[in-house]
């Protein structure tokens, strides 16, 4: 099986979010970048296929040279090849178009992307990629088995889960639950050494027409101070929730 895992390079979850250039650009100053958590669940599942059922695993990112350490980390975890499409990621559609262009040549049986990236939370790339490639797609994937050309996928729905079947080639939007948190891997020394020798191919982008454009960013207004309530006076809390906040 040939697997492609799409890797988004995102600010670490503890990052403070700030903007520069008149609130038009994300301020990367002091920000640590990581593999998008949803993609990491997918990458770990791909490693399982590689080790248990036999598969080759490529990883791909659309982004400038600064994203290469993130791809190297995916190689250190065990991916075989990395591909970087040499253009900054500007919106979900543009990223999906670039990915589709590479994927259509690659003959992949399974393409794994994250349900959404934790920076722009678009939740667009996996579905758009599937539509562009005319391949089957299952989102919010929390279980995946493949036998021959048939996949059985469990997907999270509001208030439960659903099992679906689909033929390969298949694209999934991965999320927590696809593998256990404890199965996520930290690259070891040997992995890091090996990753240095693995190929990281840089490919040039295709032209994409812009569909959406971020004009500016804004931070939420600062919140007022918390109202503390005496634990012996819970009636006051109930009254406040009823009359002031009007939520009960």
């Amino acid at each position, binding site marked *: 099986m040939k697997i492609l895992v799409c890797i988004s390079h995102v600010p670490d979850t503890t990052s403070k979010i700030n903007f520069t250039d008149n609130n038009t650009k994300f301020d990367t100053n002091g920000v640590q970048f990581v593999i998008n958590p949803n993609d990491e669940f997918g990458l770990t599942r791909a490693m399982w296929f590689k080790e248990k059922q036999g598969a080759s695993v490529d990883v791909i990112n659309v982004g400038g040279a600064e994203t290469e350490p993130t791809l190297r980390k995916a190689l250190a975890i065990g991916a075989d090849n990395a591909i970087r499409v040499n253009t900054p990621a500007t919106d979900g559609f543009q990223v999906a178009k670039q990915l589709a262009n590479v994927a259509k040549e690659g003959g992949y049986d399974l393409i794994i992307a994250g349900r959404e990236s934790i920076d722009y939370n678009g939740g667009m790339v*996996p579905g758009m990629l599937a539509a562009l490639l005319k391949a089957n797609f299952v989102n919010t994937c929390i279980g995946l088995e493949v036998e021959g050309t048939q996949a059985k996928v469990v997907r999270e729905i509001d208030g439960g889960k659903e099992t679906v079947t689909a033929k390969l080639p298949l694209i999934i939007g991965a999320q927590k639950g696809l593998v256990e948190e404890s199965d996520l891997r930290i690259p070891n020394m040997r992995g890091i050494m090996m990753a240095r020798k693995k190929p990281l191919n840089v490919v040039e982008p295709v032209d994409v027409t812009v569909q959406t454009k971020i004009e500016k960013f804004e931070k939420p207004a600062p919140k007022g101070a918390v109202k503390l309530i005496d634990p012996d006076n819970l009636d006051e809390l109930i009254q406040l929730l009823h009359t002031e906040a009007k939520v009960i």
Partner: protein
Amino acid sequence: MSVLVYIESEEGKFKKASLEVASYAKGVAQMLGTTVTGVVFNAEDVSELGTYGVDKVLKINNSKLQDFNAEAYADALKQAVDKEVSKVVVVSQSANSKYLAPLLAVHLNAGYASNVVSLPESASSFVVKRTAFTNKAFSFTNITTDIKVVGVSKNAFGLKEAQGAATAEDFSPNLSEEDFSVNVTNVDKAKDKVTIADAEIVVSGGRGLKGPENWGMIEDLAETLGAATACSKPVSDMGWRPHSEHVGQTGKPVASNLYIAIGISGAIQHLAGINASKVKVVINNDPEAPFFKAADYGVVGDAFEIVPKLNEKLKEFKAKNA
């Protein structure tokens, strides 16, 4: 040229989120000086939709569409857009809508903005405000394509009643074999439980509750309030609660009216997931817990004493105000 809105239903009933996206569609239609067309799947009585601004309903009745199917639903919606010559398509941000919207956007060659929290700034340039960085910021996004797909966050716009009645029309899209290449074999859904996605109130517990055996008081409180239960990440990682209850940056976002956090410290990743909630109450024995900075109301003290007491008092309050 109407504004098209996908109205989700369950067993023929419309969810609040569907009425909310109908209200949003009406808001856009007013800006553009046009009408709202709603699309429903296998729902008979659509009269309620008129109250929320829908002028015309396209009713799709097809037994093959009984289970949600992203590809088939997206194909049907595309044909409805073509028929109505719609320039704006509005969907909710339920798990199903988030599944089909990117497919629909590509089929329509439309720009798609998700997690939208307000109407466009003007009818001429379609700039919408959306949450980004898991609610730690907003981005103002201009959708520059001719057709636009807008995913509206729950509880962001609210319900707006309108004067009007919706006319209904049967609509039979042409569906192809390829639309059914992903097939549902089993659905496992808690029937009588409020889900985090739909809940107005969420009661959430963290590691401070010490163990899964102590969740009874959380469930009791949730029952009194008609709330959904949720938890912090370590709680689901340790298997005390299912993954589907994990709230936060790597779990679920919550956009309820009230979020009650019990024994949760308020780490940045957790707070990111609940920023969109309107009112936050925290119960924690550590007055230094970061959650107190994010909360509207706080009680410093032992959850094991406070929660059962609060539940009793809420029951009395409910009885009096019933």
